[in-house]
């Protein structure tokens, strides 16, 4: 337990000390909220969709969490190349604890980042009840945990940062755009709708949106079950892959 804690603590300390990174990573969600929110708002309202900013905000919160979490996992590559991972791998600690401690740290950082964006969305007009916020936080943390484990698992198979643009362009960006972050997932063309339903991010966004605004496509129970299942699977796979890392 104490080894998981110290790995978690390390991630947090690194996060708190990188103030530039914290601010830089808030710029993108801010831009999205501003451009999409005000840009598409009138059209969305005319089409009978209601308040687009309220619809968009949970999607942007989820986006921030996903990007931060995947990246925190990918950072294992840096540790791998520059020895810090070796320092943990020669220690008498189970490989599962190393993987899980890191993942938990990355997830916490992403979760905090998600909370920061939630506060920003408040200034863009998003309002919710306390119970809604608490429920949303649960979905946000699960989302963070899933993508941190996902990033860590990917990183364990990669040897250098060359593969990073590949992950960014072929996994992270498609997951974001095909998730219902920007548009409702009902009434989509058939093939497109299947793709969206296979995307784990869809359920996280549905859960967060449902909790905060009451608008959701699936039941929150289904969102939760799907999210927690894939998170556990991903942590399991990640831990298996970590055992095979030859630092």
């Amino acid at each position, binding site marked *: 337990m*104490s*080894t998981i*804690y*110290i790995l978690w603590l*390390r991630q947090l*300390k*690194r996060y708190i*000390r*990188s103030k530039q990174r914290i601010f830089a990573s808030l710029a993108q969600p801010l831009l999205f909220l501003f451009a999409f929110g005000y840009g598409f708002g009138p059209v969305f309202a005319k089409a009978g969709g209601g308040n687009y900013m309220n619809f968009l905000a949970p999607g942007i919160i989820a986006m921030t969490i996903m990007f931060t979490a995947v990246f925190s996992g990918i950072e294992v590559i*840096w540790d791998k*190349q*520059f*020895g*810090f991972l*070796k*320092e*943990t*791998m*020669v*220690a*008498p*600690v189970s490989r599962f604890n190393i993987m899980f401690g890191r993942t938990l740290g990355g997830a916490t950082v992403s979760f905090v980042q998600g909370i920061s964006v939630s506060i920003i969305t408040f200034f863009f007009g998003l309002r919710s009840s306390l119970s809604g916020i608490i429920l949303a936080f649960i979905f946000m943390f699960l989302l963070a945990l899933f993508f941190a484990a996902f990033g860590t698992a990917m990183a364990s198979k990669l*040897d*250098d*940062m*060359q593969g990073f643009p590949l992950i960014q362009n072929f996994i992270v960006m498609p997951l974001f755009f095909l998730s219902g972050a920007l548009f409702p997932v009902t009434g989509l063309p058939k093939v497109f709708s299947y793709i969206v339903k296979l995307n784990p991010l869809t359920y996280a966004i549905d859960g967060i949106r449902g909790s905060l605004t009451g608008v959701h496509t699936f039941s929150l129970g289904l969102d939760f079950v799907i999210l927690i299942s894939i998170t556990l699977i991903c942590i399991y796979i990640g831990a298996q892959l970590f055992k095979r890392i*030859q*630092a």
Partner: protein
Amino acid sequence: MAKIIEVKNVSKHFGEVKAVENISFSVDTGKIFAFLGPNGAGKTTTIKMLTTLLPPSHGEIKLNNFDVVTHPDETRHSFGIVFQDPSLDTELTAYENMQFHAVLYNVKASVYKPRIEELLRLVDLWDRKDSLVKEFSGGMKRRLEIARGLLHHPKVLFLDEPTLGLDPQTRNHIWSYIKNLNQKEKLTVFFTTHYMEEADRVADMVSIIDHGKIIESGTPMELKKKTNTENLEDAFLALTGHEVREESSSAKDGMRQARAMWTGNKR
């Protein structure tokens, strides 16, 4: 004399490539042992096998009487290591790096607090304990890594090119620490270096590896006598030839460069 490291008929193959081929050697407890060889000879692969990072393809390795394959955790408790590349978290302070290590090795706070102070004082870094490691020079980082490697009272300290890129003053400083520890804590030291005069000066025993095989072992004096040479560098060249070795460029070299650019790190 008790053996702290025993390597018996060990090979490591990566597909067709035979990185290490049927090597056997041992290290006596409490000695300073130099493991020498040209680039790509199999030094790093051997160290990785000794430190549980790579399983051998064949053969048996015992460290502190633990089989490294079947008892990895006991083995890991028995050694400390300073890697060729810096392995500190530069965003943490010197003290935090030490504390991180202590927790990973399951050292209790009541034990590690005085121990960290003792070691940081030993390497003259106690007054810098709360500085971020990224502010440290190459020599200070090395000293910190050595202190960290000793934190859990290991029986063996591995040093993979510990003095690479350091000036003669710092090199001397570091070796005086290590020799002091070797005597004070009865620590066995296993190191690699390309500076032959360094090995000549500090090593009790030397093994030379080339093309994945151990080609000669003995005291520096014995090696010089055998090859009829004046110093260890000439003995080394007489044994391994003058041909320049090509080390395959890996992703790592590119990354080292990239990081140097990103962080302005000189080491």
